[in-house]
C-alpha cells in the first residue's frame, strides 16, 4: 500500500491555535507524525534581555493567555525570592484564590473546546456560560478579562472586592458540573471516541516530560502544589486516576475543578480573616536582582511551568527561560498518534490540552 502524506493544520479549528501536524498515513492508520510549531513565536525570551523587569511583567500573561495569572506569579516569585520580599497573608490568599479561579476557567474552556472537537456543540456554550462569571470578576478587579497584569512584585495591584460574587458562584458551580457530567461523562458516543483511545503509559509520559493533569491521568501523583509555599496551610489532595486514556484526562479535569473549589473556599476564609492588604512594594523602576540564578516553579493548568532567571546585576535579566507544559505535550504527539486512526487524531490531540502560544513563547 502506498503511504499518503497529509498536512493537518495550521489553520484547523481543532488545533487550538496554529499547530501543523504532518501525518503519514497508510489507509487511515497513522504511521508517522511530525508536529511543526513556531507560527506564534513572539520572542518572549529575547525580549526579556532588553526590557526591565517591570516592563516585562505585562508581557508574561501572553505566554498562556488562558492562564495568565500563573506566569505573572512565576516572574513575581523569582523577583520576590531574589529581593527577599515577604508577602502578607492576605496577598497570599488573594493570589491562591485567583490562581485557582484561573485554573477553573482554563479547565472549563478545555472541556468546551474538547467536546467541540468531538462534534458536540452544546457543552461549549454551557462551559463558556460559567467561565464568563469568572472572567467578569477578573475584569472587575483588574480591568482585563484575560491578560490581567494584576500581580505585582511584592503584592497585588489593588485590593479585591465583591467577594460574595465568587462565593455565590462556588455554590452553583458544583451543580453545573453535575449537569455537564450528566450529558457528557456516560454519553455513549463520547465514550466510544475516548475510552481506550490515546493510552499514555506512565513510563512514556515521564520520559516525554509530561506533567500536570495528563500525567496524573496516567497514575503518577506528581503535583507541585504539595510542596508549594504559597499553598501552605491549605488542605487538598492531588487527583490521581489510573486509566491512562482520553476519557480519564477528561474526568480528571472535572475532579480538579471540584478540588479547586475546595481550595478557593479556604482562601476566601483566609481573606476574610486578614482584612489588611499590606502590599510590600518596592520602587519598580529600580529593580536590580543580585547576581545569581533563580528558579521558580508552579503547577499551571497544563503542567509544571517554571521560570529561570540569570542575573548579572543589571536592570534586565542576562537570560530568562520559560518551561511550559504544552511544549512537551506537542512533542508527545509524535509518539501518541502513531498506530491510531486518523479520525482519532483530533480527539487525542485535543485531550492533551495543548495551547499554542505557550508552545511558541
Amino acid at each position, binding site marked *: 500500500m502506498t503511504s499518503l502524506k497529509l498536512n493537518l493544520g495550521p489553520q484547523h479549528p481543532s488545533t487550538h491555535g496554529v499547530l501543523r501536524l504532518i501525518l503519514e498515513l497508510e489507509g487511515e492508520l497513522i504511521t508517522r507524525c511530525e508536529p511543526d510549531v513556531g507560527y506564534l*513565536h513572539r520572542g518572549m525570551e529575547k525580549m526579556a534581555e532588553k526590557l526591565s523587569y517591570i516592563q516585562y511583567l505585562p508581557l508574561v500573561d501572553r505566554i498562556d493567555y488562558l492562564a495568565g495569572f500563573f506566569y505573572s506569579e512565576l516572574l513575581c516569585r523569582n523577583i520576590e525570592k531574589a529581593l527577599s520580599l515577604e508577602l502578607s497573608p492576605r496577598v497570599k490568599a488573594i493570589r491562591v484564590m485567583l490562581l485557582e479561579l484561573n485554573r477553573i476557567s482554563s479547565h472549563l474552556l478545555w472541556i468546551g473546546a474538547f467536546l467541540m472537537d468531538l462534534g458536540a456543540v452544546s457543552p461549549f456554550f454551557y462551559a463558556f456560560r460559567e467561565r464568563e462569571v469568572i472572567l467578569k470578576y477578573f475584569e472587575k478587579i483588574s480591568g482585563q478579562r484575560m491578560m490581567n497584569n494584576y500581580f505585582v512584585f511584592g503584592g497585588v495591584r489593588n485590593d479585591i472586592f465583591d467577594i460574595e460574587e465568587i462565593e455565590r458562584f462556588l455554590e452553583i458551580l458544583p451543580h453545573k458540573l453535575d449537569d455537564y457530567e450528566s450529558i457528557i461523562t456516560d454519553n455513549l458516543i463520547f465514550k466510544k471516541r475516548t475510552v481506550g483511545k490515546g493510552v499514555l503509559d506512565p513510563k512514556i509520559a515521564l520520559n516525554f516530560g509530561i506533567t500536570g493533569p495528563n500525567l496524573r491521568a496516567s497514575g503518577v501523583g506528581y503535583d507541585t502544589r504539595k510542596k508549594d509555599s504559597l499553598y501552605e496551610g491549605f488542605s487538598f489532595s492531588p487527583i490521581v486516576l489510573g486509566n491512562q486514556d482520553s476519557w480519564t484526562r477528561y474526568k480528571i479535569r472535572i475532579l480538579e475543578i471540584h478540588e479547586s473549589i475546595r481550595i478557593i473556599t479556604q482562601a476566601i476564609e483566609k481573606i476574610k480573616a486578614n482584612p489588611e492588604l499590606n502590599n510590600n512594594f518596592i520602587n519598580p523602576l529600580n529593580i536590580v536582582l543580585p547576581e545569581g*540564578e533563580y528558579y521558580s516553579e508552579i503547577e499551571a493548568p497544563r503542567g509544571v511551568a517554571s521560570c*529561570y532567571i*540569570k542575573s548579572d546585576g543589571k536592570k534586565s535579566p542576562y537570560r530568562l527561560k520559560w518551561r511550559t507544559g504544552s511544549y512537551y505535550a506537542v512533542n508527545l504527539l509524535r509518539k501518541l498518534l502513531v498506530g491510531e486512526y486518523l479520525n482519532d487524531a483530533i480527539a487525542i490531540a485535543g485531550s492533551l490540552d495543548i495551547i499554542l502560544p505557550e508552545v511558541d513563547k
Partner: protein
Amino acid sequence: MDINKFKEIFENTTTIGEKIYIENNLAETVKFVKENYHFDILKEIIAVDNQENGIELIYRLYSAENEEEALLATIVRDEVESVCNIFDSAYADEKEIYDLFGVRFVGNQELKRLYMPEDWKGHPLRKDYMENDERLNWND
C-alpha cells in the same frame, strides 16, 4: 569525568539548586543518574550563552518517586552529545537550543529550525547575534 568520581560528588551534594558540572561523558552520566537514582523526568534543558566562557547547558532532572531535583551542567562550545536516546523530551529541548543558540547535538537526527524560518541566519539568543550582521548595513 569518571562515573565513580561523579557518584561520589553526586551523593555528597545536598544543597538544593547546586549544579554539578560534568566535563565529558555527558550522556553516560545522565543515563547513570536516571537508572540508579530514579530521576525519571528531564524537566528542561536550559542554555545560557556566557560569551567567552562558552555555552552552559543545565539539565534539570526530577525524581517523581523521591521528590528530589538534580541539576547537571556542562559547558559546551558548539557541539555536545545528545541525550535524546535516554529522555524523549530532550528531542524538544535540543531542537529549541539548536534553533536559538546553534548548539549541535550529536546523535539527534531531528535538528532543524523550530521557531525561525529555515533560511534564517544566526541564532537569536546568542549574545553576539547582531554583531557583523549584514542586516545592520542595509541603510548604508
